[in-house]
């Protein structure tokens, strides 16, 4: 697979002024709401410390906690499955659905299912899959992946949704009335809850001591997906564990405040056992996580609770849109996680950052995101995944700056060129800096030349 050209996709995204402006402003507002919420909790920074410590502890004894969770879930009457990767996950889910004769499935939002590419897998096997989260449903109807882990259609303007709904649900052309659009979607989707023979949800947290699955939503769609059909299947990454029920409150306090700047999600649902007459299965998925856990510099990315705060604050994400990352996980956390799936394909993503560090400061579990982004660049360069022209540029630059004589010669030649070349030549397309910016001034002498002239040894 070829490299994702984030810079190129971002350039495309920026061409449309209305979308760019809305996207930046909408996500900045979430950042500001998050700031207000965090300031209203005096112990905010202590909550972050504690959440980080609990996640670190859990990850350090992950195997034990996983076994504890499995035993508790089994005791509750839940069937637990283990999947090494996406392929195994999809096969397990399909086997369960096929055994129950399922032809229609309702599901709530799950980044893990995106990661495993479950929907196309099931659809290719004749199963109708209905997304029940509104944003995900919009994306499904538009045949696009989610562009954000919490607000999947945030890159779309009202008019875009209107157009998608007009073509797919038959709403009136040009109708931008939100209640009308929402009602049309609801009327279309609701019957599927009754028709579906199975429902799937993801998991925000898995509680080791109780075997409970905790799902946080704002639309209540996970509750309908889990509770209406007779079969409930949960897909969960193995990093979702927390040790005790008592730890949960901390994470619930942090999650929605960080994500949307609201104190809590509308629904925090606890699924512990199958309903009477129903069945409940949990598929625990590794898909690269245990490999990541062994990586010295990157294991702590597994603390992530998928709140999306790093995306909302990222000035690059806000100006390039989630789809520009060409990956399941966009934004700063994506730049850190995606290369573990495919280093070559996602080798440009760690460069889609100014290393400003805002992501690290909003992360509710204190992942040092910008430092990991910095570290990934070293991995990428050492694996020879920098495009050759860039690698050569750095070689030449390194040699020049590492030697005072070469540096002085380069400054002389560069200065002469800069002063003599006409503007037309200076701003050739080769000059990436000059596409949208003027070059800096070229003074007559360098500081060192001035210093020798003014303060040289012969001078008093």
């Amino acid at each position, binding site marked *: 697979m070829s490299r994702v050209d984030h*810079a190129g996709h971002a*350039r495309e995204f*920026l061409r449309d002024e209305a979308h*760019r402006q809305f996207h930046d402003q909408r996500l900045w507002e979430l950042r500001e709401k998050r*700031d207000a919420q*965090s*300031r209203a909790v*005096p112990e905010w*920074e202590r909550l972050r410390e504690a959440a980080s410590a609990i996640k670190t502890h859990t990850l350090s004894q992950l195997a034990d906690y996983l076994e504890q969770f499995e035993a508790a879930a089994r005791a509750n009457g839940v069937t637990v499955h283990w999947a090494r990767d996406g392929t195994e996950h999809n096969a397990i889910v399909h086997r369960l659905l096929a055994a129950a004769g399922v032809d229609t499935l309702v599901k709530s939002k799950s980044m893990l299912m995106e990661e495993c590419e479950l929907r196309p897998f099931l659809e290719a096997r004749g199963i109708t899959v209905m997304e029940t989260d509104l944003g995900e449903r919009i994306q499904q109807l538009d045949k696009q992946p989610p562009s954000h882990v919490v607000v999947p259609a945030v890159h779309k303007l009202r008019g875009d949704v209107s157009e998608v709904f007009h073509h797919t649900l038959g709403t009136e052309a040009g109708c931008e009335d939100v209640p009308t659009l929402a009602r049309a979607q609801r009327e279309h989707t609701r019957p599927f809850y009754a028709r579906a023979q199975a429902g799937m949800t993801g998991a925000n947290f898995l509680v080791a001591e109780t075997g409970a699955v905790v799902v946080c939503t704002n639309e209540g769609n996970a509750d309908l997906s889990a509770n209406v059909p007779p079969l409930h299947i949960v897909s969960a990454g193995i990093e979702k564990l927390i040790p005790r029920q008592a730890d949960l409150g901390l994470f619930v306090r942090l999650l929605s405040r960080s994500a949307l700047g609201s104190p809590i999600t509308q629904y925090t649902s606890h699924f512990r056992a199958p309903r009477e007459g129903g069945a409940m299965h949990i598929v625990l998925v590794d898909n690269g996580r245990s490999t990541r856990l062994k990586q010295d510099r990157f294991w702590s990315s597994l603390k992530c609770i998928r709140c999306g705060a790093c995306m909302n*604050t990222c*000035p*690059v994400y806000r*100006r*390039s849109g989630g789809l520009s990352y060409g990956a399941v996980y966009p934004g700063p956390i994506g730049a850190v996680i995606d290369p573990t799936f495919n280093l070559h394909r996602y080798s440009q993503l*760690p*460069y*889609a*950052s*100014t*290393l*400003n*560090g*805002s992501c*690290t*400061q*909003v992360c509710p579990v204190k992942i040092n995101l*910008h430092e990991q982004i*910095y570290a*990934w*660049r070293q991995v990428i*360069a*050492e694996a020879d995944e920098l495009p050759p022209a*860039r690698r050569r540029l*750095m070689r030449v*630059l*390194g*040699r020049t*700056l*590492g*030697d*005072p004589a070469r*540096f002085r010669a380069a400054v002389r030649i*560069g200065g002469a060129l800069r002063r003599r070349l006409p503007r037309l030549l200076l701003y050739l397309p080769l000059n*990436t*800096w000059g596409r*949208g*910016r*003027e*070059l*800096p*001034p070229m*003074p007559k*002498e*360098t*500081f*060192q*030349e*001035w*210093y*020798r002239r003014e303060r040289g040894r012969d001078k008093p």
Partner: protein
Amino acid sequence: MKVALFVPCFINVLYPKVGIATLELLEKLGCEVVVPPDQTCCGQPMATAGCHDDAAAAEALFVDNFAGFEAIIGPSASCVQHIRKHLFAIAQTDAVKHVRAHTFELVEFVHDILAVRDFPWARLDKLIGLHNSCSALRSLDQAATSELPEQRVSKARTLLEGVAGIRFAEPKRPDECCGFGGVFSVFEEAVSVRMGQDKVADHAQAGAELIVSADTSCLMHQQGCAQRQGRSIGFAHIAQVLNGDLS
């Protein structure tokens, strides 16, 4: 106090006035300033690209030039944070450790170590937009950021308040990154320029006549964006303001 002046490569070549202002300011504040003649660069450009092998020679040269000094002062938070936090392309000898622990950014040196607050020789009757770089904010902790609840006064602002006549514009997103980011400025040119334009526009709508920063790299980028758009807003390094160059 005897100090060594570290003039980052691009300031040496493109902004000698910033180097001169830093030198003169330190002298005004009573420092004996030495300028090692063979200094080039701290190695950051190659290291931020991930190419630490290519940064090693520049980093070693930096340490050779500055190992003999008790205080190394540079007018660039971004370069100083590289020395302090990322100088790991070379073996961590005693000399390297010494240099990393004794390199200071100009603002923190004047604010924390010299503890100077008044600049009676300087005056600036302007509404300025203060740009704290991300390195100054989130790596060198020179000011509180909007992400954290902590209340802390910006060191750069405290120093600028010691210059008569200065008033501060209040942009809407005072600590949003301006989009320079070293290699980012060319690897991600479109986003970088957009961020620069947005940054300058935010200062302009707040009425700033002059954008002041302790990081010339951010200013170089913002100035390039502003000039291309035909904006008349000015740019100055904080050393130039504190030294009274603009008085």
